[in-house]
């Protein structure tokens, strides 16, 4: 159920556009349903509409059937049919579409992943404030419930949409597609996709990003990279946040970086504090280099 308006059950995800207030729901079959609630009334509305979404407004199914006609052979038990299908094919196909869409517009899309509380949103708030007027940024926020993070981003000065996954523990490519449709990011901009705080499932779902950025804070354990190797192996960059707290902790930075390199010898690391601003310039330099790469790739 949508945490903001309570307007639907049984949906896979709800996307809230902070600019217009429009809500889009993605149901379990991947259909989109969009509707706007006017929330500028100050009476206690208690409409408990539990519409079953038997909608006949044109929803967009775009399953790409490319089944290359399975050879069937009979046996005593029944008919065995070879399928040879990748289980993640639908998500991967949609992620490829997102990637092509971003690439054609020279947009740098990043998938930010971490545990809850590592400071993803705070890093984004500071980044938006520091780069305002220089780099257009918009944000897709993923959380199970509430639009709090998207509101924080909007207050920092960047357009944002909130995706509520309900019980879902990660974002999927179709949700990002709906988010991008609402945001309409400008050519050459950065789209930050803040995934649901979780170091496990988001590693499996390609969203069409150019790179995954894993964020770890020094209040967590040094060994997180080897405890959650899938995520740190999938990331291009690790941001080690909250370095302003190091004097008060026993956190061993070198040990942590060594663990990260153990699971991913190619991973780049930046130490920063979104609170004091220390190290943020290194992050902005990395972003600039990635933007240049995104723009070069568009014409490659």
């Amino acid at each position: 159920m949508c945490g903001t308006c309570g307007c639907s059950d049984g949906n896979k995800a709800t996307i809230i556009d902070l600019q217009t207030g429009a809500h889009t729901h993605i149901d379990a079959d991947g259909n989109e349903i969009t509707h706007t609630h006017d929330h500028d009334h100050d009476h206690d509305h208690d409409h408990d509409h539990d519409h079953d979404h038997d909608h006949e407004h044109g929803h967009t199914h775009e399953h790409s059937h490319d089944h290359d006609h399975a050879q069937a052979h009979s046996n005593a038990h029944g008919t065995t049919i070879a399928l040879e299908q990748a289980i993640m094919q639908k998500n991967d196909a949609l992620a490829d579409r997102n990637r092509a869409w971003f690439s054609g517009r020279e947009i740098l899309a990043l998938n930010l992943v971490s545990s809850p509380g590592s400071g993803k949103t705070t890093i984004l708030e500071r980044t938006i404030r520091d780069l305002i007027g220089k780099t257009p940024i918009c944000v897709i926020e993923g959380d199970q419930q509430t639009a709090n993070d998207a509101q924080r981003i909007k207050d920092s000065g960047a357009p944002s949409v909130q995706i509520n996954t309900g019980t879902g523990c990660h974002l999927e490519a179709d949700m990002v597609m709906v988010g991008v449709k609402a945001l309409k990011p400008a050519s050459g901009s950065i789209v930050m996709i803040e995934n649901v705080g979780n170091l496990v499932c988001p590693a499996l779902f390609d969203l069409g990003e150019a790179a995954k950025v894993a964020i770890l804070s020094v209040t967590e354990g040094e060994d997180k990279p080897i405890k959650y190797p899938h995520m740190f192996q999938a990331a291009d960059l690790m941001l080690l946040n909250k370095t302003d707290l190091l004097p008060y902790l026993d956190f061993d930075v070198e040990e942590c970086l060594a663990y990260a390199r153990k699971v991913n010898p190619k991973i780049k690391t930046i130490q920063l504090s979104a609170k004091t601003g220390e190290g943020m310039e290194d992050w902005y330099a990395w972003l600039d280099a990635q933007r240049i790469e995104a723009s070069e790739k568009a014409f490659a």
Partner: protein
Amino acid sequence: MHEMGITRNIVSIVAEHAKSQKVRRVRLEVGKLSAVMPDALQFCFDVVAKGTVLEGAVLEIVEVVGSAKCRKCHADVELHDLVTACKCGSRDLQRLSGEELNIKEMELEAA
């Protein structure tokens, strides 16, 4: 529990191919380094298959071990986890298997 979403994908792909025929058996290939737990898939499968042409079908899971080729010394390396290094000490490995997540085949009830 991403296995729930993954199981939904499995059921939807198989049901699409089975059309309205009843499915007896589904065989999957799951890599040991894929971050997907076979037990969790089995658990989710019965729940998700309920009310579909896959209801009551047997889910067979073939696990695939991880393997890689060392880019430095060209040795074959068996991977038991994501942090295994080659005997020569190098971690620059080209992964060959272990990340599979495929539906291999389905068996339909004889018409």
